[in-house]
């Protein structure tokens, strides 16, 4: 593992010996591709990009090489970084596995746990490494809290709360179509479902409410989901995810209370940097968590995953974690639809996405 340079700005180059001569096949050119491209370039990687839309534009902006087909991309790349809409993750991951290429796949790994297990099984059978990009595990605040919990700083975890809110992406594009995005729980809360499990342990039950409800597979534009988890440790946790009014500033945070202490963080308050610029810039944007002032967590993430793909030590998040996060999101949806608490000992992923 390389040691991240403390306080290094994102624009600096973080070339890493372990990643020398790397060619990444970027598949997809939407929202999240921009931060991945910036990170890969900072790591000194060559990027070939394939996308149904936007590849030329992305390529011009960052100086990438466009390839005209998925097969061409797979042939050219050492491994692929899949940043396409969620509903296409499974198919593209299976194609990469078939081509013998390792995979980094944006969260959610797939839209159902059954599909996640299918791609995991296929990867294992082919000897392929597959990592889900659950970037929140690489955000310094979340990692610091996890470390403190592991070190026993707050004793036994009792009650945890996580939240995540952003300007709704559901006004346009594919997010509002629950069959393609999974809705606000699968798309946004999946981060915190992973965090809740990471910090509080494996989940025994899931209760979920969403308002307004999804009707006929179409998510409301402005919507909030509240999910309560119980954990094997006896801890209880709550996740709130909100697609807010247009212009809502991205915010996330947590409070984790344990038997001997409490840990708290909110991205809006605890940055050590406040600005108020009267230049008419619009507040709020995408669903992409704002980066921290130090090294980009996306860079930290992609470096750790890439080193893992090259045979280094396992990263802090594995495909099984991605599959479990999806499984929890599915259970949340099942709870929402039935009004019942879902028992995770018996819950079976149905594979229905809408």
């Amino acid at each position, binding site marked *: 593992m390389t040691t991240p340079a403390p306080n290094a700005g994102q624009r600096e180059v973080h070339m890493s010996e372990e990643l020398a001569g790397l060619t990444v096949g970027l598949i997809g050119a939407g929202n999240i591709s921009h931060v991945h491209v910036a990170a890969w370039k900072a790591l000194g990687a060559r990027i070939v990009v394939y996308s149904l839309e936007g590849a030329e534009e992305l390529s011009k902006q960052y100086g990438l090489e466009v390839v005209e087909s998925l097969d061409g991309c797979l042939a050219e790349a050492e491994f692929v970084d899949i940043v396409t809409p969620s509903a296409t993750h499974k198919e593209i991951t299976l194609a990469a596995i078939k081509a013998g290429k390792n995979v980094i796949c944006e969260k959610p790994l797939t839209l159902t746990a059954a599909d996640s297990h299918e791609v995991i099984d296929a990867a294992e059978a082919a000897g392929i490494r597959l990592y889900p990009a659950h970037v929140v595990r690489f955000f310094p605040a979340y990692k610091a809290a996890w470390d403190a919990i592991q070190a026993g700083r707050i004793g*036994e975890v*009792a*009650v945890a709360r996580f939240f995540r809110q952003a300007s709704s992406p559901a006004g346009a594009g594919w997010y509002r179509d629950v069959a393609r995005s999974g809705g606000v729980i699968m798309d946004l809360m999946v981060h915190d479902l992973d965090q809740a499990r990471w910090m509080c342990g494996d989940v025994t039950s899931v209760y979920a409410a969403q308002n307004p409800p999804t009707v006929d597979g179409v998510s409301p534009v402005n919507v909030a989901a509240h999910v*309560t988890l119980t954990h094997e440790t*006896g*801890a209880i946790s709550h996740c709130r995810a*909100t697609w807010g009014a247009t212009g809502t500033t991205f915010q996330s945070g947590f409070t984790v209370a344990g038997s001997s*202490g409490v840990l708290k963080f909110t991205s809006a308050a605890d940055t050590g940097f406040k600005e108020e610029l009267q230049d008419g810039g619009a507040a709020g944007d995408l669903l992409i968590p704002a980066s921290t002032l130090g090294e980009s967590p996306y860079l930290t993430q992609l470096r750790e995953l890439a080193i893992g793909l090259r045979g280094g030590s396992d990263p802090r998040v594995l495909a099984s974690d991605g599959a479990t996060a999806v499984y929890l999101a599915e259970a949340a949806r099942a709870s929402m639809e039935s009004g019942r608490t879902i028992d995770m000992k018996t819950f079976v992923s149905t594979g229905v996405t809408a």
Partner: protein
Amino acid sequence: MSLKVAIASFAHVHAASYAQLLGSMPDIEVLSADPDGASAPDAGPRGAEFAASLGVPYVDSYDELFDWGPDAVVVTSENAGHRALVERAAAAGVHVLCEKPLATEVADGEAMLAACEAAGTILMIAYPVRFAPSYLQLRAMVQAGRLGDVFAVLGTNNGKIPIDSRQWFTDPKLAGGGALVDHTVHCADLIDGLTGGASATRVYAAANRILHQDKGAEVETGGLVTINYDNGLMATIDCSWSVPDNGPTWGGVSLQVTGTNGSVEIEPFLPHVGGTDASGEVFLPIGGNLDASMVGTFLNAVRQSGPATAGKQPAVVPQPDGAVGLRTLRIVDAARRSAVSGQAVEL
């Protein structure tokens, strides 16, 4: 005109604040009684000694207290004792400010409302956070439609376990439960005020006892309560006693309200001057004296309504009233049942 205000019991920690406030008002005569104080297992002073420390007159029994002929009574007994005292006050035509929660059981709460209604006495519930300037601003914005359609609320009422000063808070019989009972109602009241009295239709609660295990508490110390309302609103309340013993004594209450046009988050106890002194952190609250606003509202209503007339509604019904107390108690009761069954409770 001077008002005679009785304080019935020092069991609740808030009695001290009310006694000091009432004692400092020039046109208020105060008399207190805490007959069960002597047998309480609390470390701190109760009864006559506590009254003396607060500088308020004291009598030994509730008989003497009500024989005094009070215009109003503040009921600050253990939760399970509210019903008997409120019914007694109603029978005597005495207006009531009752500490929250209204009661430990819904049937008790219903009986209390019926008694006060029959007697024509005021029944106001002591939910002071309703009087916070930040909350009033939020409510005005919601009412003016500034948030658009409000569809989700996340409330927290954390804070320390009150076991050190008053042990009955962790006695399942006297308190009616633990954190679910003590803390859910404050946020439920704030939500009630925002919605104009929406009723809960479904309540789910998860609770545990991991916090404060070392103190031998027989009740839940952590809880998360998710509520659906008949107006479509969804809310979750974290009612856990999750501020550690060495944590700050302030704060812990927040309400995050999301609408189609944006969101507002309030922390009513946050406004303060900070700093450091010889003993550590300095926290000088500047958010206003909420108890004073609440007690003032109650006393104004008592004055304007005059003596109770049986069967006649008081001229002024101060909010939050008994109906709010009952709606919030129903939520607590459903939360308790849900925490046991593991499933949501339909109301």
